[in-house]
């Protein structure tokens, strides 16, 4: 009989720093769902995933221009395009009818 948790530890080793999409994919979309007292519901999380995709897609141009932002800065940097991205996101969300309750400036 082996001791499983010891075995786990022995083979676990150190892991490389994880890419953010791999973390988000697991942490936001997987894992057991237990309704806490204060839990963002599943719908919100799906919505969030859509938002993330939109946000990251918006940064695609920067990468095409040769800015390897993903490697150097694992997530979208708040850059000079920040407001533009937010605005674009808001417009897209409104068009898709998936955003509610956000104050309009």
């Amino acid at each position, binding site marked *: 009989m082996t001791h499983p948790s010891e075995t*786990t530890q022995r083979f676990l080793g150190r892991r490389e720093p994880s890419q953010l999409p791999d973390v988000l994919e697991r942490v936001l979309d*997987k894992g057991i*769902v237990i309704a*806490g007292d204060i*839990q*963002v519901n599943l719908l919100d999380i799906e919505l969030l995933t859509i938002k993330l995709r939109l946000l990251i897609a918006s940064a695609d141009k920067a990468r095409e221009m040769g800015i390897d932002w*993903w490697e150097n800065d694992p997530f979208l940097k708040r850059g000079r395009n920040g407001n533009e991205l937010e605005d674009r996101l808001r417009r897209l969300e409104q068009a898709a009818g998936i955003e509610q309750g956000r104050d309009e400036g």
Partner: protein
Amino acid sequence: MIASETETAWYVYGVVPAHVDPVALAGAEGVGAERVELVSNGGVAAIVGRVPLDEFGEEPLRRNLERRDWLEATARAHDRVLAEALGHAPLVPLRFGTVYRSEQGVRDMLDERAAELSEAIERLRGRIELGVKAFLVEAQEDATPPPSSGRDYLLRKQEARAAASSVQAEAFESVRALHERLESLADDARVNPPQPPELSGRREPMLLNGAYLVGAERRPAFAAAVDECRDDRLELVVTGPWPPYNFVEREDPS
């Protein structure tokens, strides 16, 4: 305790057997940079952190989720706590953002779900999740003379498309073989939708986004199998060990 009851919330990361030594969690810093602790009941224990309600309450949480920097930091912290615990105990990871208003709320949840959680813990004991992503490597374009005519140009385009689609078909076949091989070494496997380039951060198409539940002692064999399947058309990226995020949601939440 300095914080009053109303200001504190209990963030739950995951569930481990009740006998786990809390010292095992000493190194992990939580989503609110808090010290992580265990709340036990019914033979299982929740890995929890006391977090401020003004950050993790319903409204603030909703707002914070819109902040990319906050989301990145907390999502990584959630994963870090679980990855740390994984080295010491079998665990059931919870989805991000499970928060209780009181420690009693956590205890009640454990009591209610003890049987199901214990069963999941036993199923996952000694196992880790490994991720394998496969990218189609674009062939280097040969330097060819410029097309001599419009027809020549169109012909070449057609040939290039045909070549690309046969390369892709071969690559898909390799990926399927790879997945089958890895699945045979794993206790369970999931194929997730490939991340689009916007998410993967890479131009090359992702052909496989797999997750494999592997006995920890099989990790070297698994890595060797991945290495054997490498070829110049496919770039394979192994991630993890992860807590078994992909292998806990069995029942229908509806």
